[in-house]
């Protein structure tokens, strides 16, 4: 059913008994053209664009649990394209443009809200770095505004501007940044892909790969063997574990990132704010809860939960930025597992094994990339060549030296 004001009115008048499931819970067939392992945002987006842009509809998305049970439902919902490096910036801007048209494309309300992302600076050196970043963004056609202290004060009078150590001197604002309802992204892509014939198969864990020499020709799963011409991995958080089944070692460590939400309050924070003197970012959901987070815990983990020192560190950052936070009670915290790559940037590429393709290494920036990741991975799977904006995300860049180290911290994943 197409969602519209008319379908809503029709259902309102008939007691809302006609709404069907948004997508089809499929059983595996013996063979597909493309299998995508991982029913998260990136995998479902890949399936949607394979079907819609490339006309490939014999596609299965295999999900170990239920769709959207991983990081697409665990992030802090922020979208932005304020990257510095030439290899990154056009990719994230492609993502932003896809976000801007997402709801019309999917016929699904994902609550895309361009409420602005403001990165605060607290020193002259940091202002210069943000001016450079803003200029790099504008040279790529991305919106960026450097605000001074008074402009920030007019927007966000409740911040602590005069802290002795980290006085706020201004901020770099991307007005087109904002937030998106993350679960709706998974459901919307699932519905759109399913509507074009893609099979979404849940409770189907990949346990091995079928090979013909080096070539990957299918997967073994908990629901039986499935053959495919091409297999794409979109299992960030568990990329190393799944790739190991094919005998591959990746430039990735898995780390836990925690996120937090407060009790719901009346509208307080208009956009997304990031603290420049520590790692802390915050926004307010449409339900009223303050959604915030900070650094990864910093050690390898597959536990999907973190430790208390990081909770304390994040809350200290929040209190330094906006002391009013101390009056609000924290409601929940949770953890997600990040593919921390060795240069802090993702991988969308062939693997050394023909027939096996890799989408991984999203660190803690995967959500904003969801549409472009799906778009570029679908392009790679359909045409066997990288998409123009994702050419820098090569798996072999660690050997060739063409690293994309946005932060400049080297091969130490817990510092990215």
């Amino acid at each position, binding site marked *: 059913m197409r969602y519209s004001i008319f379908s809503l009115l029709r259902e309102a008048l008939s007691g809302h008994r006609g709404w069907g499931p948004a997508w089809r819970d499929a059983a595996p067939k013996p063979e597909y053209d493309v299998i995508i392992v991982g029913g998260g945002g990136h995998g479902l987006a890949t399936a949607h664009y394979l079907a819609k842009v490339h006309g490939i509809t014999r596609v299965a998305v295999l999900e170990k649990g239920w769709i959207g049970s991983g990081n697409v439902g665990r992030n802090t919902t922020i979208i932005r394209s304020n990257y510095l490096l030439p290899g990154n910036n056009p990719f994230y801007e492609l993502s932003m443009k896809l976000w801007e048209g997402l709801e019309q494309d999917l016929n699904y309300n994902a609550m895309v809200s361009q409420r602005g992302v403001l990165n605060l600076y607290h020193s002259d050196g940091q202002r210069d770095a943000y001016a450079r970043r803003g200029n790099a963004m504008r040279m790529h056609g991305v919106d960026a505004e450097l605000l001074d202290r008074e402009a920030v004060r007019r927007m966000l009078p409740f911040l602590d501007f005069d802290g002795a150590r980290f006085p706020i001197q201004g901020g770099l604002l991307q007005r087109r940044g904002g937030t998106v309802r993350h679960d709706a992204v998974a459901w919307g892509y699932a519905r759109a892909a399913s509507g074009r014939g893609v099979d979404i198969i849940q409770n189907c864990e990949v346990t091995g790969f079928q090979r013909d020499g080096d070539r990957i020709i299918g997967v073994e799963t908990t629901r039986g063997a499935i053959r495919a011409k091409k297999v794409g991995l979109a299992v960030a958080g568990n990329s190393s*574990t799944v790739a190991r089944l094919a005998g591959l070692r990746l430039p*990735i*460590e*898995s780390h836990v990132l925690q996120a937090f939400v407060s009790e719901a309050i009346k509208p307080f924070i208009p956009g997304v704010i990031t603290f420049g003197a520590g790692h802390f970012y915050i926004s307010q959901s449409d339900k009223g809860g303050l959604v915030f987070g900070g650094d990864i815990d*910093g*050690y*390898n983990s597959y536990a999907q939960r973190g430790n208390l020192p990081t909770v304390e560190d994040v809350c200290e950052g929040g209190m330094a930025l906006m002391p009013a936070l101390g009056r609000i009670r924290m409601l929940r915290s949770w953890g997600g597992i990040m593919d921390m790559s060795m240069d802090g940037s993702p991988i969308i590429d062939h693997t050394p094994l023909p027939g096996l393709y890799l989408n991984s290494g999203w660190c803690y920036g995967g959500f904003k990339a969801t549409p472009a990741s799906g778009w570029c991975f679908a392009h790679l799977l359909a045409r066997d060549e990288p998409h123009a904006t994702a050419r820098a995300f090569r798996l072999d860049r660690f050997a060739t030296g063409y690293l994309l180290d946005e932060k400049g911290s080297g091969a130490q*994943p817990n510092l990215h």
Partner: protein
Amino acid sequence: MRIPCPFCGERDLTEFSYLGDAGYVRPDASGSDAAGRFVEAVYLRDNPSGLHAELWYHASGCRTWLRVTRDIRTHEIASAEYANPAVGK
């Protein structure tokens, strides 16, 4: 998470800093395949889902490097010993 330092006893996570996988061995730079081996040593990781041998530095304690074996699915620590076997002898 608390780490049982062999010198200081069980101490809080905040006293330690993390380096990563303890399996790093510096390759022989004079070998003919040195470039490939350095790429593997610097960039590739096993990243196992289970027991993981890793290096921690007890920065706010005895300032020794520890080799900790930890189940990274649960954060349960199986053992912690001096990274340099000569320490403590």
